[in-house]
């Protein structure tokens, strides 16, 4: 409920005191691991484990790519698959024109662990964003992370929605919540400040030195224009490499299931 992860030192002790919920999950994760180590060969257990995680994340990323969430861009960090860098472009609402960097932090037990966390890089005044840590309360949307039914793109979708439709129940930032409820003008002002801040700091070097962290730079026509044009050009299908070596054969005429029904074309 509190959305705090191990990163939040302050809450760390509380976890120890109230271990029930997370422990269940941990137990689940552990038992999963146990099962894995029992079912797969020990060799597999220690050398395939990371692979499975990476494959799972890669599959998640592929799913995300297929969603084409508007205004959300993410890229996994180069050094760890467990961190994805992202940028959120807000196109309307209180945070219109905001460009917010964030990181998605994925638990190591994924997909069996907890819900992935999202941390904003610049301070964002928002009821669901913790004022000190910048963590967005995503978990409220995913009380229990269920593999196969929950996906990382859901998290990003939830994140995006949070900036369009403001929630104030059980806020991470009570001040923002109250202000939103009681003094909408003030809230709008504060939100606009955030937007301005985010844009002002857009060109700053990213917080992380990971090669994949997202860097903004000024538009320089000589550098970017050709690329832009290329992106605007529709891609021709023929550009895929083909040829006898890479091409398979098919002589099945569409509309039939008869082999060799296609006229022989030479």
């Amino acid at each position, binding site marked *: 409920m509190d959305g705090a992860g191990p990163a939040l030192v302050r809450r760390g002790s509380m976890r120890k005191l109230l271990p029930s919920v997370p422990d269940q999950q941990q137990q689940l994760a552990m038992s999963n691991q146990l099962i894995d180590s029992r079912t797969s060969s020990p060799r597999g257990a220690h050398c395939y484990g990371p692979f499975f995680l990476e494959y799972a994340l890669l599959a998640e990323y592929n799913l995300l790519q297929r969603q084409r969430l508007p205004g959300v861009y993410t890229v996994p960090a180069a050094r760890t698959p467990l961190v994805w860098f992202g940028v959120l472009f807000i196109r309307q609402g209180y945070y219109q024109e905001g460009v917010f960097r964030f990181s998605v932090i994925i638990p190591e037990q994924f997909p069996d662990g907890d819900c992935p966390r999202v941390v904003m890089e610049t301070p964002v005044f928002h009821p669901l964003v913790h004022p000190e840590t910048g963590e967005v309360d995503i978990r409220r949307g995913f009380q229990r992370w269920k593999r196969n039914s929950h996906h990382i793109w859901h998290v990003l979708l939830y994140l995006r929605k949070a900036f369009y439709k403001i929630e104030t129940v059980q806020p991470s930032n009570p001040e923002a919540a109250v202000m939103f409820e009681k003094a909408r003008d003030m809230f709008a002002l504060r939100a606009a400040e955030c937007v301005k801040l985010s844009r002002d700091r857009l060109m700053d070097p990213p917080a992380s030195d990971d090669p994949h962290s997202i860097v903004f730079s000024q538009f320089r026509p000589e550098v970017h224009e050709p690329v832009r044009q290329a992106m605007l050009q529709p891609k021709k299908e023929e550009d895929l490499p083909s040829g006898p*070596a890479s091409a398979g054969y098919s002589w099945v005429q569409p509309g039939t299931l008869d082999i060799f029904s296609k006229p022989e074309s*030479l």
Partner: protein
Amino acid sequence: MSSWLQKAPFGDSILARFRTSLPVKDEVDIDVCVESFHSHWEQAWTKMQAHQDGTVAVTMDEVNTVLNHTDQLRALVCWELEQQQGSLPGRLADLFLSNRVPERLLAWSSCCGQFEPLLQSELLRVFEQLLRAGGGSLLEQRALLRPLTALLVRCRSAPAAEQHRRLVLVLAQLCAALQARPALLDLFLGVEPDGSVSSCVVFSLLVEFVHSAGVVGATAREALLRCTRLSADSRPLAEFIVHHSDFCEVLATGLSGLYSALPRTPPAEDEDLPEVDAFVCSLQFCNSVLQTCHPMVSAVLLELVYQGFLVSVMGPALHQSSSEAVVTATTYLELCIRSVDHPGLVRALVRLLLRHRHDGVAVIDTLVQRIAATQRLAVATLSLLHTLLNLNCEDVLLELVLRHLLPCSHLMASQRSRVTETDLYGAGARRLLSLVPACCQPAAAADPRAAAAAWLQCVREARLALTACRLATSRWTYAYDGSDPSPAEAERMTRRRPSSVGSLSLLGMEERGEADGETGGEAAATAAAGTRLSAAVGGGPGGSPVVHGWRLGRLQETGTAAGERTGSPQSDTAADESSTAAKDGEQTSNDDGKDVSSNPDSLQSNPDGLGSDGGSEAGSSDASVKSQVWATPPRPRPPRRPTASAAGPDPYPELDLSEGDVWATPRTSLGASRVGPADDTPRQLGVLAILPDEESSGTESSRGGGGETVSLSGAEVIGEEVRRDSGAVTGSIDSAEEAVVALGEDGGLAGTDPSLVEDHIPAASGPVEGSQGQSAPDVNSSLQSGIEESDADDGSHVVSLSDLISTHCPSDSEDDGDRPAPVNAQDATSSENATTAADRSAQERSLKPAKDTKETVSPCRDLSTFVERHGGTVRAPPPPPGSAPVSGSGSVPQPPLLSERSAGADTTTAVPTIGPFLLALLERLDRATTNSLQLNLLLMSVISRLAHYPQPLLRSLLLNPTLVCQPSVRSLIQTLGSLKHRIDLATRSVQDAPGLVRWARSRLEARPAAAGVAAPASPGLSPSPASGPGSLPSPVQGLTSGPASLPAQLGGAQTAAASSEGDSGGFSLTGLAGRLRRVLPAVSLTMENSDQPRRRPADIISRTSVGPDRPEWDASERRVALTAVLLEQWLAELAAVALEHSVATDRLVFAF
């Protein structure tokens, strides 16, 4: 100038050519050259004139002088030609031509008697060099062209090899010149008044050398390629090639000729293979021609290659009676597929496999059945199938696999939407890895880094392979994802099929009709099939021309002995068939043909009618056809088909069959024989099976129809059943104790295949042979003896025998339709006395309890397995081909039991199946612990290759463990699970199991050293025509194990043989080695991941390197351990494939 005149004596003239090749220095004044020219010509001309009248004999000396002078002239002109690149002849060339030097020389040469050939030869050289120097620039000059053509014509009949060489060189230069200036081509085309081209000297001459050996042949072929390239843009030339040249015929018949010269046994490793080289070279030449020539030419050439080589030579070769010959032919066919890459040629080869019917059975069905055959045959076959799968050909996959999955009948209804699901979290991979045998669990490969590296390698290779496969199949017609086409669509399209194919659905005829139709032959592709058949039949042997009319006409035209071709039984199956049918009696066949062909739809919709009427008729005609076949001694093929189909009508009274099944069986066999309709029969069967109320009449009549067959071949039927029973016995033991099973199978097997025994183990054959004819108890005894023998006996044979036996196990792949190896057994059986039939069946029944025991005993087998096994017993022989063969795998004891599904057949949802191919693979995999190492490796690589295909229907079936199949359908995971279980059981009691596994690992790891192979792993996805001639032993693309590995492979085969035998170290190799060398198929192994050193060598365990092993494990234990370790590695590979599938995406292409 004088110095030039001091030329060497005549004998030296060849050297002179080099010495004088560029005698004129650049700075030499042209005037001096002209002067020199005149002088030389004057002297030469004087000499020549002296003998114009021919009265005085020319002396060597004079010839010599003239030649020397002309050589100087030639040198001068060449020099000039090389100096100036202009199109107009220079002064010297002008002189050369205006003095009509070539013409006069040619004229003079005919006066020179014995020196004429010499002069012609030198003249050829002159022309060649002029052409080389000047390109085509001189060709436009009549003064050069006319003597040149005249000379060419004259040389045509020259016997001297040297002259041939010269001639070909000139021709090659000519072709090069023509290619540079295509406009000149017209000069060499003899145009008729009507505008058609009737002659082309250059081309016709070259064709004569196309099969020549050495440089001459190579040069000629190269020149011909230039010509065919020219033909691409020159319709007249193309027309000439097609209509007036025998080029295509020469190529096609050449292939046949070269093929028949190939060694009949797979060659030994260090053998030089000139025949193979020649054959491959010729095939690749065809390939190159096809790639360059005019579509008109390629159409004709392809058709000729298909009919003249593939169908008439390759087809029968694949169906020979001797298992060894079949193995060899299979290997050669694989070599063919690997050697070509022209789509048309690939198509022709694939068409032979998928469409061509030999004795009414599609070749591919036969191949699929051979997966269950003897080890050697199965290895060769699997290797071929692997190559086939590597083509990424939709038609292949459709026929082998996808057609059977399209109806989604193998899935529980609720699961159908899950086919496309992505396995996000590696469940498939985890499941696969969980199936690693327990004995491998304490990972002996202690070094985690090495393990990780190996795993990474696995993953990388899987990714490459998947990417390539995905790309290659991206333009397939359908997605095969359960909705494109949907099961309903698939059914609709399948239903429509017979009519869409038109009336060509007659067995055997279909192929032909299609072929004719494709090439536009007038053989009435549109005629009703019935008419066609009856015409062909009615005419008897004379009727064949109706079928082949077009082609034969062509052949006659070109002087090929058409009669001979038609007459030869080998020449063409269709001819074969029709003539056989003709003998059989026109009336019957006519009826049959008409009946079947005229109303396929009514047949389909009205099973009753067909069952009662057409069925019996077809039956009788069929039977008589068969008897004919038997009666014909010179037939190259043994009565395999008949036997197979005879096995169909299964009188086994206690089987839990619905009547429909019994009914279906004989019908299918009929359909599969020769006259039945290809597609209609099976479909109809399907219909019947689901309409129990229709059954009774159908059954009756079909029984009637089948009865004939039975009476004809009662002995076989019995034999078949005996085998089944022995199989059942084996099966019962099977679940209880693996090792015993293996022995039991061996023994039982040994009993089943007398002919093989005869062939190979004369010693053993005596006692064993008899068992075939004996009753069930005898089977038992033979089983006993088998157990005893199996250890001592020649491993290879026992193995193959065991294969045979297990083939007949009910649990094993579908009943034999025409499985070559079993054939032998059946052969023997057929000679059996039919009187013992009743006897035997009674005894069989007594054996039946064994089967039941097995059911109850087997802990690891679920109902489905059991059902499957029983289904297996009644499984009908393969259905007519073009359609998919029977897939009786899953038959539920409940109502519509086993029914046939075939391509053309009604795919009615009721019959869960995954198709015979997958079934055969899984069943063979089920026997992994008794397979040879080599066989296991191939089997695994074939399944891996299938797993590379991204088509969801296939991928989900193979790799998604959560997909729920129909109970009767066994998935790969289930099969692996039961395999693991059996391995675990077998290794549980072994003493020092970890030690045994360590031994197995080191054994497998030792292979690379033995093999000395280090082929770079590249997913062998593309046909590599590059695989040069002689690459026979190493045809696997990308993974070619070099020639060096062949001995190792042979060694592996010994192991293979031994391994099913127990792999015992103390196994005597004396004598065996040599024999294996001779008979082993030179199949290279194709593990996709061969880059991992430890697995690459696929089959290789060098016996010697292993040496005397620790003696405390017996043979079967070692075999199991090897299988376990192999399985462990393969599972890692499959897991990698599964993981890669989960993250595979259509490639995003960024342009920047």
